[in-house]
């Protein structure tokens, strides 16, 4: 297993070209980059640019992963570049990305079903849109993926939907099985589904057979009167037990690349954390929220609550900072790189025996 990073999330990455980003990552001991969109590697999907970046990565011995983007027809419009790539034909836009990735030997393309929105409570998540029910969004996503699947298969590509904050692992597995694991897989973000009240290890067991890309991340949840809030922490500093999860992933796919996803740092020091001043991100006491999680069963809820309680005790004892204390702590470039380095170190220390052979 090789350990790299989401390219976009490394500190100040937006100021550097893709080639420079590989150099920076390499200097940090990272073994690959996962570009959320292939368009981040070349804004025009220029074959020469893409090949140059891939060649540079190969020279450094680093992996390259990339992304397709949104695949939920009800929010694809939030990425107008997809349709523009196809000159108005969205499916052609997807095809062009897939073919461009295949041409440089990138076989795994990340995708997502939605992006978090700047609203409070459950409305931060598209699964609670009131104009189109989530079930309809999922059905439409499957239909679109079934149209993308032949293109992906013909090019040797897998489109890997992320365990993103709006979707559950149950739903993702159903999508993969409906479209076909020969074309669709999962990008496993190890912390996001705390927001769906899933126990990270239970999630890992469910998705492991289909995981082809990763965001290795940690986080914690905090009880508030109207639910819970979610806050990212460096790997090893939250509730996610990578020591349990990584062996599960290794067993299913020993060649899986592990990509850190670290806390944003875009150069603006002290920016308040998104969501810090809104209604509870996990409004789990609301009947609407509960009805929106039909796969959540009591045994996993118990395991999740136990995990949250262990964390709460660590906060109470002062072993780890609480939500407000952490949000108020200095957050500049130095802290951002400390986050990357400590996260990397923790992942390396959590890998099972044999995972680093051939890395």
């Amino acid at each position, binding site marked *: 297993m090789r350990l790299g990073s989401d390219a976009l999330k490394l500190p100040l990455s937006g100021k550097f070209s893709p080639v420079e980003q590989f150099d920076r990552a390499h200097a940090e001991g990272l073994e690959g980059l996962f570009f959320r969109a292939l368009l981040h590697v070349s804004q025009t999907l220029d074959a020469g640019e893409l090949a140059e970046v891939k060649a540079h990565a190969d020279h450094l011995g680093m992996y390259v992963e990339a992304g397709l983007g949104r695949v939920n027809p009800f929010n694809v419009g939030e990425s107008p570049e997809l349709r523009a790539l196809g000159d108005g034909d969205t499916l052609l836009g997807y095809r062009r990305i897939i073919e461009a990735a295949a041409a440089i030997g990138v076989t795994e393309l990340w995708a997502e079903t939605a992006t978090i929105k700047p609203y409070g409570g459950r409305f931060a998540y598209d699964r609670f849109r009131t104009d189109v029910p989530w079930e309809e969004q999922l059905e439409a996503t499957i239909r679109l993926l079934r149209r993308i699947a032949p293109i992906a298969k013909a090019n040797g590509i897998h489109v890997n939907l992320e365990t993103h904050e709006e979707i559950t692992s149950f739903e993702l597995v159903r999508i993969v099985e409906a479209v076909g694991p020969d074309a669709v897989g999962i990008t496993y973000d190890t912390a996001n589904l705390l927001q769906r009240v899933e126990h990270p290890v239970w999630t890992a067991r469910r998705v492991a057979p289909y995981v082809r890309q990763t965001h290795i991340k940690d986080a914690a949840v905090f009880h508030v009167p109207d639910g819970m809030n979610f806050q990212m922490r460096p790997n090893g500093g939250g509730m996610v037990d990578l020591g349990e999860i990584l062996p599960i992933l290794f067993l299913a796919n020993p060649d899986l690349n592990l990509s850190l996803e670290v806390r944003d740092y875009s150069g603006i020091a002290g920016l308040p954390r998104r969501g810090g001043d809104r209604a509870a991100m996990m409004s789990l006491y609301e009947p609407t929220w*509960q009805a929106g999680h039909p796969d959540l069963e*009591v*045994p996993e*809820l*118990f395991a999740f*609550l*136990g995990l949250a*309680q262990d964390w*709460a005790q660590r906060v109470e004892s002062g072993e780890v900072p609480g939500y407000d204390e952490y949000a108020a702590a200095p957050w500049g470039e130095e802290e951002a790189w400390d986050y990357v380095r400590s996260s990397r170190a923790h992942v390396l220390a959590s890998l099972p025996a044999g995972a680093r052979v051939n890395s």
Partner: protein
Amino acid sequence: MIGGVCLRDLPGEPTTSAELADAARELGASVVHVPSPEWFTDDASALREAGIEVAVGLGQLTAVRGDWIARVERAQQLGAGSVHLSVGTVEHRASPEWPTILKSATGLLRELVAVGVPVVLKTHEDMSTLECLDVVDEVPGLRIGYSPVNVLVRMEDPLLAAERVAPLVHTVFLDDATVGWVPDGLHRWMRPVGSGSVPWAELLPLFGPEVPVVLDLHRAEFDIPFRTAGFADGETHLSVADVLAVVRSTHSGGNATAPMTERREAGWAALRAIHQRNDTETPLFAG
């Protein structure tokens, strides 16, 4: 609304029906619960003459030996308006014999109902309301005594549980509690009526005016060890909604059992308020 009180929660320690009637009258209680038909050393006429209804406890089906039918008949002779019982304890529930215990209890309950005195199965800490309803399905005529502080021990939301059983409820038991975090899960602490997490303001309107509200101050705290292996296996009645409602309640009230003196004072004040209410529009508890 009719107020009632359990013998052990009365001021003083009445030992005769006359003393019991006096103590109940002082609180405005119209119903008294005595722990067993064996408590009476007289014929309970003082209570009948005072217009106070007697409810007789029969204990736990697993604990009390003897002729149950004879005990119910004795209660009937005393003029009891109902007899109340539960099946067992949390230890019985955790034992492999629990299904057998429940089956045996169901059979006995059919015989007791046939005597003709209303038989009331209390939502004790060993059984959820859903399990009580299963028993009622098997025993037509059986009624339910609803204790919201006990359903917390089975991780049921007191309000959701009340809605489940309301049509079958014979008696509501008045007490309060909070639930808080402990290493193995949750724990129930007892609190003065009105200062715990039981939503009495929302609960009471679910029951008709003929349903007595009986002060019953529980003595035991209980663990709700949901983090122990296998706990969920024995709790197939649980729902996500119930569990989260109980978890939400951990944010209110104190995490300690209040002194009995405080609890009694609050309970007696609630009983007097029930008695003095002549306006059913005014909530008894603040919502």
